[in-house]
């Protein structure tokens, strides 16, 4: 068996499962910050897929994409974290019961 065939199928399957887990967390939340870190994971998984494809086909077309993803991927999380705020009266976190961003609170302009 060719080693790169094995890497394609085994590595690809592992990456896809990781991407599905991240997608589930993006869809189900429960909070904005959970979605932010899940988006980071999804970006890293995407970089891993590019690396795998470059290794299998032995070309260097996507190196710039991998470097750029590593360089600017954190901007989204930082921005979200900066402007996330607490809209709940307490921290009784019920994982599947809450949809963030549906209520408003005075003083919402301060980025807590």
């Amino acid at each position, binding site marked *: 068996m060719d080693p790169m065939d*094995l890497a394609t199928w085994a590595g690809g399957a*592992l990456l896809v499962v990781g991407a599905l887990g991240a997608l589930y967390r993006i869809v189900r939340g429960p909070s904005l910050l959970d979605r932010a870190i899940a988006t980071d994971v999804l970006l890293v998984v995407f970089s891993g897929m590019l690396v795998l494809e470059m290794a299998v086909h032995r070309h260097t077309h996507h190196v710039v994409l991998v470097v750029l993803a590593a360089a600017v991927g954190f901007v989204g999380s930082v921005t979200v974290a900066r402007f996330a705020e607490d809209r709940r009266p307490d921290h009784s976190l019920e994982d599947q019961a809450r949809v963030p961003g549906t209520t408003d609170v005075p003083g919402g302009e301060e980025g807590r």
Partner: protein
Amino acid sequence: MTDTATLLDWLAAFLIVSGAFFSLVAGVGLLVLPDLLARMHAAAKPQVLGLLLMLAGLAIEWRSWVWLPVLFLAWVTQMVTAPVASHLVGRTGYRTKHARRELLHRDELAAVVRRAEPPADPGPRRAGARPRGRR
């Protein structure tokens, strides 16, 4: 079968699959872990070690020294930026009560927050009332 090229191919495949395994770890961790801080712990695994293993496998598979600095740049950039995002997300999660503090064994930030903020007022904050000493 045992020549160098095949051996390097197997090594590269092993490294890439090992790196991809950390993606699986992150996906499972995001699925099953209970709160934001624990999910951040799982999410950091493919960003650092997973990416390093996959880039090492890629460098071996390319058989080229020329691209090694570029791959190293990608990894170092990820190492520099990932803690920034994690730091801000974790702090915001703590301050916005998205982290479940009852799951923590040690809460070293609690004393700082208690000192920086007036005693907890569970009611809605007044508009424009900025808590002093926010960190």
